[in-house]
Each structure stands twice: as C-alpha cells, then as structure tokens.
C-alpha cells in the first residue's frame, strides 16, 4: 500500500497529511481490500454514500480518481477519491487541482465513529475530527438532524417507503434510506460515547432513547425484513447481525446474502463462472411464488447482457430483487447501481462472454471433425437447395456419411474452425473433391442426395437408347422398323435370326450374298456412323421386307445368289465366307441375320465393286427409294411431334395466363 503517493491515477501526486493518511488507511482497511489491493466495491459504495454527497458528485469523484476507468478502486484511486470527497464536502469542485491543497478530512457519517473507535490513541485525530465535524455543519449534521424526526416514523414503520419522500431532496431515494438507515444503526452500534460525541455537534438527538429502543426495533425489523445497512459495521458487527438480512432498500447485497446466493447458485450450477440457463432460472425463481409478471420484470432488470441466461452477478441481482420483492419493497424501474453486475463486483471479471463461448467452443470443436460434414452440408445445400445448414444437419450428415470423416479430416486440419458462411466460398473449391468423394460412398449411403446423384448420373446413359425408339410414334411401322433396326444393329444378330418375321439383318451386312454386294456397299460407305448404318439397314430391311412381301425375294435372292455363285470361282476367299453365309442366309432368308457384319462387309466390299453395275444401279435405286420412304415416314413423325409440341405450348400458355389471373394484384 503506497500511502505516500496517494494518487496512482494519471501520475498525479497528492500529498497526504498524517491525519489524512491515518484516516485514509483506516478507511481503506474498512473497505476490505483483497489481496491485490482492490477494494470491495460494495464497501466503497457504502462509504461514498455515507459521505452524503449527491450522486453526481460521487460519479464525478469516481471518474476523476480513475476508478471508473480502471473498473475498481485500488489504493491510489481510493485515496484520491477520499480527497475529492473531502473537497466536495467543503464545496470545492471535484477536480484534481482542488485536492492539491490542504483539505479537511472527508466526513463519512457513521463511519467516523468507526474511525474514532479504531484510533483512540490519536487524540489529535479525535479532537480534530469532531472539530472538523463541527465546522461542517452544513452538510453532515443536517441530515442527522432529521434523523431523530425520522427515527420515530422509521421505528414505527416497517416499510421504509416513508423514508424515501422526505429524503428525496437530499439524495437519490434508493440511497438515502440506506444511508439514513445506516446512520442510526451504525451510530447505535458504535456505542453511546461516540454517538454522543457526534451529537455534541448536532442539535439534540434522541439517540439514547432511540438506542434503547433500537435494539428491540432492530430485532423487530430484522424479523420484519428490515434492511440492515452494514456500511459502518465491521466484520464483527456483521457476525452480530448473523440473521439473514434482506437489504432491500439500499439495494445492496451483504456478505451473508452473497454467500447465500453463492450457495444457491452452486445448487443450480456448480461452476461459479458458468451461466444458469433461462429455463433453469425460471423454475428456480418460480418457486419464490412471485407473480410471473414481476418475475419477468426482475429478469429484465437482472439480465444485463440480454442473453437469456444468468451469470453469477446477474443471478445475485435477480435473487436480491426477488428477496426484496418478497419483503415487500417495490421493484425499481431501472437496476440500481449497486445491483449492477459491473459495479457491485468490479474486481470480478464477468466471464459471461467467455462462458458464452464455451458452448460455442464445444460446438466448434464438434465442428472441427464435423467441418467436413458442414462442407458436405453446404455442398448438399448447393446440390439439393436445402435450407441452411444446421447442427442437426451436420449431425445428420455425420450419421449418414461416417465414411466421409476419414476423407474429410485432412480438410479440417488445413482450415481452422469455420462457420457455414465461410465454408460456402470454400465449398465450390471443394465441390469437385466432394463430388468425387461423394460418388464413392454413394453406394452405401442411402440418402436422397445420393439418390439425386444417382439420378443425375443415370439419365445421361439412357438417352442414347431412347433416341432409337420413338415411343410416341404413332406409326407402328416405324416402331417395328426401328426395333428391327435397333436390334439389328446390336451384335445380337443371331438371336434375331431366330425370330420369325424378322427381315434379314440389319447391319448391312449382307445376310445374303447378293445383298452383300449392295448392302456391303452401302454399309461400307456409311460404316462410320451407326445411324447411317441404320438407314441403310432400314433401307435394307424395308427392301427386304418388300422383297418378302412382294415375294420377289425369292427371285431376288436367287438373283442375288446367282452372281455370287458365278463369282465364287473368281474370289475364293470372298466366297468362302460368303458361301457359308449364303447358306445360312438362304434358309434364313426370311429371318436372316448377317453373320459378322464388318468383316463380311469388308470382305464383300471388294466384291461389290466387281458386281455388275446394272444390278448395283438397281439396288441403289431401290435403296434410294427406300431412303425416300424412310424420309417420308420420318417427316411424318416429325410433323406429328411438332403438332404435339404446339399443343403442349398452347396448354402452357393457357396455364400461365391462368396463373397470372389467379395471382393477386400486388402493389409496391
């Protein structure tokens, strides 16, 4: 404790006289400094109030001395504050300059008795103090003068509301009763000698009779929820007033009360630094049987940070207010300064922010391994346009894709804890990775996303198939035609051959040797495109069918067969494959299947060139005709589809117009 340099704030150095030093050290000790030299704010507040300075002055003092800035009263701040209060009591403005000079000691009514008690060895002090007290008749004695008047009504009345009105002009109502309350009790407790010493300066106080009655009244009041101010009392006095005191009016929490509240807090929440959840607190406070609106009001007052939960100071405040209310005191409209968590315990760093982050931290920890799932979740969002990612979704994703976690672990490690908002920009980057990784587990995770993914991947494959078949085609011929062609193009030609009614095989490949000449020519020229092959196939088929229908086929076949036969001698190699083919085809002339199309066509390609031109020409012309017919059929199909498209368009337009009509007129 540096008593020499009283002012630790702002580097100003204020000298203290011996008396001042003694007094201040006494007051300092009175205010229960803790190990680091900070003073208990409650005690300091009591002391300040005992100085009987107006609230604004006290605020100024707190500000100037630096305690407001620091948040607590250290030794230096306290001394400066004391000097400032002395200056204020003398009438000087609350400034550091005013305390530079010699000032009388600040007067704390009710506390000076304590000091006198403590320092009986300093007669000089005692002499000076009463002297000083005598000189300060303006401020200090006046309120005490009213005390005798008020004591009667006070003692007679349990409620202290009567105190407030008469006191309001002097000091703020919540404080005045407290201060005034303190005086009688403090004075009473201090003993009659000091009281009389006080009274020596003050016009007749009915202290003695009051004192006699006061203990009884005191006990009475204790029972009747009397607010006991312990501002003057030392720790021993506190012990004397061992009963639970409900200090409502001063809105100050005593040590006993604080211990009681602490125990209650512990019963709800073992950790003093943690929060009590709103519902827990609600159940607890409902037990007090106060009406819900009042509880609601108390909550509003005490939950300063508006987080729906109570920290330990908030809890004390709320409990205190409930106690006050139960004792009959009206609830204040705003939270009294002493009950504010920040003021009452300036030394205690309120840890709601850190505690509030604890659950968040837990969540974030969960998010670390679950960050991947969050990414997954965000990807899911993008994929399936679901509503925002929530923890539930994360857990759901987690449960759905546990196999993802090993893959995802590298990602979270790279990144710190991320929120969904930050993940979203990352998700596009990882979208590919997600996609790739997602495709893998899709097989064993049955989720809609996977189904969607599957569906997304499925469609691409089918299209080629349907393109070959036109289900909407009204012409059966075409269907049959396409089926034939489609199936014909497949290598499953052997199976086709077994079917009856099948015309000779598609792939151009010349089931028939004669046909081979032409068909091989055609497919040979259009071998590159499958569709093109189809067309010649169509042509082939149609040609075949026509031949079949026209029963010219036999002639044709014979005709076709004839040339190969004639050429068989010429091209032994070509014939070799042809002959067996021919044999196959011949019996299968009605349902022919071209054996190996491509090699056959390649083999026959050479032959085709050697075929007699007239037959080739005829075949070409036939093919052309067939192509034209196919074209006609296709155009017919096209027109039909166009008509259907138009119909659908019309329907869509009508629906849209109906929708527009149904939509209500919206202004803005």
């Amino acid at each position: 404790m540096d008593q020499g340099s009283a002012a630790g704030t702002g580097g100003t150095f204020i000298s203290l006289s011996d008396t001042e030093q003694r007094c201040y050290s006494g007051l300092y000790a009175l205010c229960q400094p803790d190990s680091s030299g900070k003073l208990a704010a409650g005690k300091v507040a009591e002391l300040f109030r005992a100085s009987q300075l107006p609230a604004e002055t006290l605020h100024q003092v707190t500000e100037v001395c630096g305690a407001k800035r620091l948040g607590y009263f250290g030794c230096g701040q306290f001394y400066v504050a004391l000097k400032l209060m002395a200056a204020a009591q003398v009438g000087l403005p609350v400034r550091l300059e005013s305390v530079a000079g010699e000032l009388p000691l600040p007067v704390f009514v009710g506390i000076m008795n304590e000091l006198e008690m403590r320092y009986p060895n300093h007669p000089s002090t005692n002499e000076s103090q009463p002297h000083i007290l005598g000189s300060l008749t303006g401020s200090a004695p006046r309120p005490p003068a009213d005390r005798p008047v008020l004591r009667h009504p006070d003692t007679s009345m349990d409620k202290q509301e009567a105190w407030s009105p008469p006191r309001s002009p002097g000091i703020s109502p919540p404080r005045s009763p407290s201060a005034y309350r303190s005086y009688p009790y403090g004075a009473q407790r201090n003993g009659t000698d000091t009281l009389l010493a006080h009274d020596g300066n003050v016009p007749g106080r009915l202290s003695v009779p009051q004192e006699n009655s006061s203990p009884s009244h005191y006990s009475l009041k204790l029972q009747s929820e009397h607010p006991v101010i312990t501002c003057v009392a030392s720790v021993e006095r506190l012990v004397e007033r061992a009963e639970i005191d409900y200090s409502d009016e001063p809105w100050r929490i005593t040590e006993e009360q604080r211990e009681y509240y602490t125990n209650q807090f512990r019963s709800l929440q073992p950790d003093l630094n943690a929060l009590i959840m709103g519902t827990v607190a609600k159940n607890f406070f409902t037990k007090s049987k106060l009406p819900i609106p009042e509880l609601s009001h108390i909550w509003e007052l005490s939950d300063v940070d508006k987080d729906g939960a109570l920290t330990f100071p908030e809890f004390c405040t709320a409990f205190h207010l409930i106690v006050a209310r139960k004792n009959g005191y009206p609830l204040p409209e705003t939270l009294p300064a002493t009950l504010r968590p920040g003021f009452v315990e300036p030394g205690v760093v309120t840890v709601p922010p850190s505690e509030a982050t604890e659950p968040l931290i837990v969540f974030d920890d969960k998010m670390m391994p679950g960050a991947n799932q969050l990414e997954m979740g965000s990807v899911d969002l993008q994929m399936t346009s679901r509503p925002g990612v929530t923890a539930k979704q994360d857990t759901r994703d987690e449960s759905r894709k546990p196999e993802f976690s090993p893959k995802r672990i590298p990602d979270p490690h790279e990144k710190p804890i991320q929120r969904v908002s930050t993940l979203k920009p990352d998700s596009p980057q990882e979208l590919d990775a997600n996609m790739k990784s997602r495709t893998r587990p899709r097989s064993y995770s049955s989720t809609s996303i996977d189904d969607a993914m599957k569906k997304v991947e499925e469609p691409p494959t089918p299209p080629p198939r349907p393109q070959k078949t036109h289900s909407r085609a009204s012409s059966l011929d075409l269907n049959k035609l396409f089926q034939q062609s489609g199936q014909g193009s497949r290598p499953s030609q052997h199976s086709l051959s077994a079917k009856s009614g099948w015309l000779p095989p598609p792939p151009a490949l010349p089931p028939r040797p004669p046909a081979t000449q032409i068909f091989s020519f055609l497919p040979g020229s259009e071998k590159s495109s499958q569709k093109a092959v189809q067309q010649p196939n169509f042509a082939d088929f149609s040609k075949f069918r026509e031949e079949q229908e026209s029963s010219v086929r036999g002639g044709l076949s014979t005709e076709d067969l004839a040339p190969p036969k004639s050429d068989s001698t010429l091209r032994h190699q070509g014939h070799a494959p042809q002959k067996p083919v021919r044999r196959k085809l011949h019996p299968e002339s009605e349902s022919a299947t071209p054996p190996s199309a491509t090699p056959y066509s390649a083999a026959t390609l050479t032959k085709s060139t050697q075929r007699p031109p007239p037959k080739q020409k005829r075949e070409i012309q036939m093919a052309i005709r067939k192509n034209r017919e196919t074209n006609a059929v296709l155009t017919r199909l096209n027109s039909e589809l166009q008509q259907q498209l138009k119909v659908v368009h019309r329907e869509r337009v009508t629906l849209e117009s109906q929708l527009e009509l149904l939509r209500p007129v919206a202004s803005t």
Partner: protein
Amino acid sequence: MFHYTVHTSLDVVEEKISGVGKALADQRELYLGLLYPTEDYKVYGYVTNSKVKFVIVVDSSNTSLRDNEIRSMFRKLHNSFTDVMCNPFYNPGDPIQSKAFDSIVSTMMVQAC
C-alpha cells in the same frame, strides 16, 4: 380501429413471403417495405426469420418519413423484441408487458412524429 388495417396487411405480408419459393429463408429480405397504401395511411411490413411479423402504420400526411428511417425503426423493434423473447418468463404469444420494450417503442414513435 387500426386492427382492421393491420389484419388486411397481414395478407399482403403472407403473399410476399410465400411468393419467393426458390430463395431460402435466410436469403429473403427481412424488410418488406410499403405493403399497402391507402388514402389515409401507409403500412410497412417486416418479417423475422421465425415468421414473426411487424407492421407499422404511418399516417400518409407524414411524408417526411424516409425508407431508411422505417428500416431503422424495424431494426430497433426487432432488437427489443429479441430482448423480450430472451426472458424465460415471457411466453411467446402473450402480450408484451416489458417496460423496456414499451419505452423503446414510445421513444421511437415520438421520434417519428
């Protein structure tokens, strides 16, 4: 007497929030703007993410009120409403009896007028 107006404006609010089907809830604008002008007054709407609707009815003669002021009013309303909701003793649906809320609303209205 304003209840009728407010009830009719609720339909407009519903229509506005249900119209945007493709956008997600958090993409949707909370401030709905001028809902419904009549000859006497203008109605402004605001909806929270929990579908709690705030409706402000302003006299049409008061042309000095700008859109930004209305927005700030809604923001203050929203903040004080969340404070009220934080109170565990408050059951959603009850009439709000919070004095802090009332004071904020009154000061806001005084400022507007």
